[in-house]
């Protein structure tokens, strides 16, 4: 059983329209790398030019914020990762 990565609406264009993608890994970082292997366009959606998670990306594991050490956060089979995007409009 793998981890489920829930994809934000604005990123589904990079995952063939899929809202949730199974991924394997022991950490959030592993799972995101695994996601990017299959959906390479997610790379520029998530990482900045220096290879860091973009400021506007938020990661939640099992509906709880994983900030600030998102990528190192350990996950277990069956866990849910949500990738969301900071909203700035008002």
């Amino acid at each position, binding site marked *: 059983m793998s981890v489920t990565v829930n994809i934000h*609406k604005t990123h589904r264009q990079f995952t063939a329209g899929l809202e949730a993608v199974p991924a394997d890994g022991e950490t959030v970082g592993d799972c995101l790398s695994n996601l990017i292997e299959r959906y390479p366009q997610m790379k520029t959606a998530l990482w900045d030019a220096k290879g860091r*998670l*973009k*400021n*506007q990306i*938020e990661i*939640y594991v099992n*509906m*709880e*914020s994983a*900030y*600030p050490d998102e990528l190192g956060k350990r996950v277990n089979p069956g866990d849910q990762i*949500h990738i*969301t*995007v*900071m*909203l*700035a*409009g*008002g």
Partner: protein
Amino acid sequence: MKPILTGGEMERYDRQILIPEIGVAGQEKLKRARVLICGAGGLGSPAALCLAAAGIGSITLIDHDQVALSNLNRQILHGDADIGRWKVDSARETLGRLNPHLNLKTSTARIGAENALAWAAGHDVLIDALDNMATRYALNRAALETGAAFIHGAVHGFEGRALTVIPGRSACLRCLHRGEAPEAGRFPVIGVTPAVIGAIQAAEAIKYLTGIGELLAGRMVVYDGLRARWSEFKVNKNPECDHCGRPSERNTP
């Protein structure tokens, strides 16, 4: 002791005084309350209308912009005849018509890091009805310094979110984010989204001011208007947060 609410006010707020959690005591708290609303646009419009209607005694409304035609799909404080006017002038008329008991202060100041603290001073609640993250962070910091509750709202398209920050008790806006992000610019939005989120912000303010219910402190709600679905994410205080963390661990002054 002289009653705080007049006979007219008792009748005006009769239906909400009937709510057991509010009652006359709660209504009096609302009348004594001072709320700062930063922004008279998509979020500020419904938030200000709801709070003025509910009998908040004093509101300070700040917005440095003028009404434009493309604002009118969502900024319901303003109408066609207001195009080109200061938003706060238009808002003053609308809110004055709605509730003449409201003590409203307005300003066309531009809020930023240099003046957010001065504007926040003397208010119980700060409503984030802004359209950029930099100013939101300035207001977040001002809330932490003054102790006022900070009620965050943001929208994009059919998606919106809200989070309440109780200084010293719950996660602040900076506990979520590592820093600046691209500004929204001409972002897509339809009026129902800020109407929903602005009303939630007003509800949070009312609950905080009257001390009732459960706040969105430490939990962020995300509204997906297209699907009519809500998600709730737990947000923890970050001990190393550069706004609310322990001073020794902050990485900025």
